C-alpha cells in the first residue's frame, strides 16, 4: 500500500472519520492548530469497515479529551491515535459524551442561554446516541447530529 501522506513522528492521527467530514473535524478543533502546526487531510480513502473514510494528521499536538469529545459529536466512529516517535502510543476511541458543556449553542432563540444580556455556558444532555440527539438542559430543545455538525462547522 502506498502512503498518500507521510508518517508523523509525534502528534495525533484522527482515523475513521466519516467520508467527507474531515474538514468539519478540523474546523471544530482549535483554529490555532491550522495556523501553527503541520496538518494533513486525506479524504475518501478506502476502508474495510466504512467503505470510504477520511483521515486527519496533526503534527506535534496530542488532542485533549475535550477535543476528542467534540469530534464525537460529528463523527462518532472516529478513532484517535496518539503518535510518539512514529509509534502508536495510545489509541483513544471517541465516545459520545453524556453531557456537553459550552460547545453547542442552543438553536432556540428564546432559550435563556441566548438572552442578549446573559453570559451562560450552554449545557446539553444526551438523549440518544443513535440517532445522536442532545437536549438543552435549560430550555429542553433538542438538537440532532446534523444540526450540531452544521453549527460546529460554521
Amino acid at each position, binding site marked *: 500500500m502506498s502512503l498518500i501522506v507521510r508518517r508523523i513522528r509525534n502528534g495525533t492521527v484522527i482515523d475513521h472519520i466519516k467520508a467527507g467530514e474531515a474538514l468539519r473535524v478540523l474546523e471544530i478543533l482549535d483554529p490555532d492548530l491550522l495556523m501553527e502546526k503541520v496538518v494533513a487531510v486525506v479524504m475518501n480513502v478506502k476502508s474495510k469497515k466504512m467503505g470510504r473514510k477520511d483521515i486527519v494528521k496533526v503534527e506535534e499536538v496530542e488532542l485533549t479529551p475535550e477535543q476528542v469529545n467534540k469530534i464525537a459529536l460529528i463523527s462518532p466512529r472516529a478513532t484517535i491515535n496518539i503518535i510518539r516517535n512514529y509509534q502508536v502510543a495510545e489509541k483513544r476511541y471517541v465516545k459520545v459524551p453524556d453531557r456537553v458543556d459550552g460547545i453547542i449553542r442552543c438553536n*432556540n*432563540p*428564546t*432559550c*435563556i*442561554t*441566548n*438572552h442578549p*444580556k*446573559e*453570559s*451562560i455556558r450552554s449545557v446539553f444532555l444526551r*438523549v440518544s446516541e443513535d440517532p445522536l440527539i442532545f*437536549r*438543552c*438542559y*435549560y*430550555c*429542553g*430543545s*433538542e438538537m440532532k447530529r446534523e444540526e450540531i455538525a452544521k453549527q460546529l462547522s460554521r
Partner: protein
Amino acid sequence: MISIEDVSRKELEDLFLLADEMRGRRTDDLKGKIMASAFFEPSTRTRLSFESAMKRLGGEVIGFSSSEGTSIDKGESFSDTIRMLDRYSDVIVIRHRYEGAARRAAEVAEVPVINAGDGRGNHPTQAMLDLYTIWRKFGCIDGLTIGILGDLRYGRAANSFICGVSKYKVRLKLISPPPLRIRHEVRSKIGIDFEETFDLEKVLPELDVLYVTRIQKERFSDPSEYEKVKESYRITSSTLMKAKKDLVVMHPLPRVGEIDVSVDVTKHALYFDQAANGVPVRMALLKVIFGVV
C-alpha cells in the same frame, strides 16, 4: 419547582389533600417569610393567586409585575436581578419570556425558586391546579378520557398539563390544527398512548374533560403562521350538545374567543373554579416548600 416532570404522582396527591385543607383558610404558617414575585411577563391569575396564597399563610410579598421600572431596564442582567431577589426574600416566584429562565434562576439563587411560566416551556403550578381541579371534580384522575384542544406547540400550560396528566392512566386525545401539534421534545416525554386529531366532533362524545387553550399569538416568530391558525376552533354551548352530560370544560385562561360566553352558564363550565383553585394549591405548595406540613 421548575417542571411538573420533577413531581411524582404521590407528591401530587399529597399536595391535593393539603390543598383541600387550605381551602378558605388563613394561617400564620409562613409568618416572617417573604416571597419575591418576579414577573418579567404579564400575568393576572398566576401572580395574584401566588400573592394571595402567601398572604393567606401569613407571609409577605415583594416584587414586580413587569421589567419596567426595574434595573433590568437599565441593562442589568437577569442573573444579577435574581441574585438580588435571593438576598431579599425566602422564596422566588418567577415568570419570564425566555425558556429555561427559572432553571437558570434556581442555579443562581440559594432560596427555592418556583417556575410561574417560562416562555413556551413549563408552567408546573398551573398543571398542579389543573390536575387538582379534575381530582376534586371526579374524585380520581385514572380512567378518565381527557381531550386537550388548541395550541399544543407553543402553550406552556398545555405542555405541563400533558406531562402531568400522562402520569395517570387516562385516555388522552390531543386535538389541534396540524401546525400546532405538540413539539417533539414534549411528545417524547408522554409515557402513555395518545391520539392526535383535529376532529373535535368525533372525539367529543368520549370525553370527560375538555381542556381548551388559547393560541399563543405572542410566541409565533412569523405573524403569517398565526394568521393561518387563528380562530381555527371555538367552543359554544351548541358545540357541547353531543358531549357527555358530566363533561367539564377547562381553560387555563385568559380566553380570547376559544370559549364562547354561552358556555359559562352551562354545567360544563369549570374554568372559573379551576382558576380559583390556584390559591389553595399554591398555599399547599408554599407550605411544602417551607416544610410546614
